[in-house]
């Protein structure tokens, strides 16, 4: 054995292969460290810059005029309202369409087209969605509004929910469906009472992922909900939102604004990461059970 190794390691071919292997492995380690390094760097600096500005007044005061101290209350409330409405509008359509793909038209032509189109929408540039909603809502109505922002985000919610709903319903074993059908349960009731129940954790995960996705979206809000310096819950008026405020404040020359932008960025990141971790743990427990 040792003899062979010695002989082999002396041959130039073998040592060359071994060297290439070692180089590739080292590069793979470096690449991974590089990838993880960014995560650490981004989160680290975000924590450092964001925590400094974090205080109660961030949640209790509105966005300040240039050069004054203030908080982000109106932006946080605006973001919450727009996000909740977007989910309320988008989720039912997404779940129903996903149900069609998984239950009624698993193999028909319409489904394969819808599936394809949905995948395109899933990764379509969000700024284009913003332009779309501008054209169909803001331009005809003549003014920017919270509604337009909610619709724009709903358009982003739909494909995410369609995709996860379909995936999760497909995982429900057909024997369950057959058992339900064999005792005479109509198909609609079978889907609502059996399939939805079996796939519930997965569908909830999809909705959570959709919320995570839209809570950081900025581009579609820029020219739909626009922004508002003041506290407003009027959906027919321009409405402030956290991402747009961050965008505006970060690019401003005022130090107070920049610091608030960092704090807002931290809030969004924590929300998004928390949502995706919760979503992940939901499906993880489901798999192991």
């Amino acid at each position, binding site marked *: 054995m040792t003899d062979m190794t010695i002989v082999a390691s002396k041959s130039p071919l073998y040592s060359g292969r071994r060297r290439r292997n070692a180089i590739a492995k080292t590069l793979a380690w470096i690449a991974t460290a590089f990838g993880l390094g960014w995560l650490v760097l981004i989160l680290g600096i975000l924590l450092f810059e964001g925590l400094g500005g974090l205080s109660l007044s961030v949640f209790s005061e509105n966005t300040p005029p240039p050069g004054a101290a203030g908080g982000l209350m109106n932006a946080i409330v605006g973001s919450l309202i727009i996000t909740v409405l977007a989910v309320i509008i988008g989720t039912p359509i997404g779940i129903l369409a996903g149900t069609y793909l998984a239950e009624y038209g698993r193999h028909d032509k319409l489904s394969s087209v819808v599936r394809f189109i949905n*995948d395109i929408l899933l990764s379509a540039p969000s700024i284009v969605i913003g332009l779309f909603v501008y054209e169909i809502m803001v331009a005809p109505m003549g003014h920017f509004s919270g509604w337009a922002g909610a619709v724009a985000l709903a358009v982003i919610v*739909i494909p995410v929910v369609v995709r996860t709903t379909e995936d999760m319903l497909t995982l429900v074993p057909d024997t369950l469906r057959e058992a339900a059908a064999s005792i005479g349960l109509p*198909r*609609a009731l079978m889907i609502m009472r059996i399939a939805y129940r079996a796939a519930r954790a997965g569908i909830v995960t999809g909705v959570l992922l959709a919320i995570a996705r839209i809570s950081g979206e900025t581009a579609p809000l820029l020219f739909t909900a626009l922004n508002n310096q003041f506290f407003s819950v009027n959906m027919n008026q321009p409405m402030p939102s956290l*991402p747009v405020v961050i965008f505006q404040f970060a690019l401003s020359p005022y130090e107070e604004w920049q610091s608030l932008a960092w704090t807002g960025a931290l809030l969004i990141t924590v929300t998004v990461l928390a949502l995706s971790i919760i979503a992940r743990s939901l499906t993880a427990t489901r798999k192991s059970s």
Partner: protein
Amino acid sequence: MDSGGRDVTDMTLRGTSVTAAEAASRSAVLKRLRLTDVVFHGLTRAAAFAVLALLSGVIIALVIGAAPALGTFGFSFLFDESWNPVTERFGALAPIYGTLITSAIAMLIAVPVGLMIAFFLTELCPMVLRRPIGIAIELLAGIPSIIYGIWGLFVFAPFLQEYIQPFLIGTFENVPVLDSLFAGPPYGIGMLTAGLILAIMVLPFVTSISRDVFDAVPPVLKEAAYGVGCTTWEVFRYVVLPFTRVGVIGGFMLGLGRALGETMAVTFVIGNAHHVSASLFAPGTTISASIANEFTEAVGDLYTSSLVALGLILFFITFIVLAIARYMLLRLQQQGR
């Protein structure tokens, strides 16, 4: 059993002896159930059509919005570098150029690094670390793009300006070609910075899709290769990669689609200048950054319409890229069956 008319099975068996009242209530229930069935089926079908309508709606709305600009400038809109709101002369060349260049930089970096990370995760990584590292990389994908933007503006761009750019300018001063790529004052913001930020954003996509397709390689294939004495790298290079080629390219395309359409991360650091310049350090613009920066300030129908036309071009490009990506991933799925 005589009065057991409520029992459905029983009633069916006894058929003839069902009283008229029982039959009526039974058919009412059945009718209601049938109605639920039809309505629910109709609703899901309508929702499926709504998804189709959404995409057609996006295309129609953009075409209508872009019509005035495209009508005025025609095809030359695509090749015109000028962007002058005062004289109302607009062309898409600079944004298209910027979009392509920044995405190219991003892919040049993200593809090899992403592949190597996926190689690490599937072949080299100790089992205990596989899940945590995989999750960490996916968290990187979940960070909203505006965070990359603000981080790029305040941290990354100054760093590049201070250290990397002067170094590159100095190093390639006397090299042909490269000296014009890395020329000019180091602003910090510009095409290179935008491309690098995009690379960090796209990296997790490329990594997680490559890892998924690598994981789908039948173990027998790898074991056979190890059995004839291949090194880990050789197994990866000559067995895993060729086997998963279609899926990996699909993953790249998906990442590319994301890079092309990315808005916020780029808008912060691109500098928004409608110029086509050879130097990667020069401020430029991309389609999405132009729209984000100028749309709300655009005065006049032609200006707005030109920006919508830019959006239409972007949608068209990403649509093609994403369609290719989906087609390739679909092919891989069918091959796997």
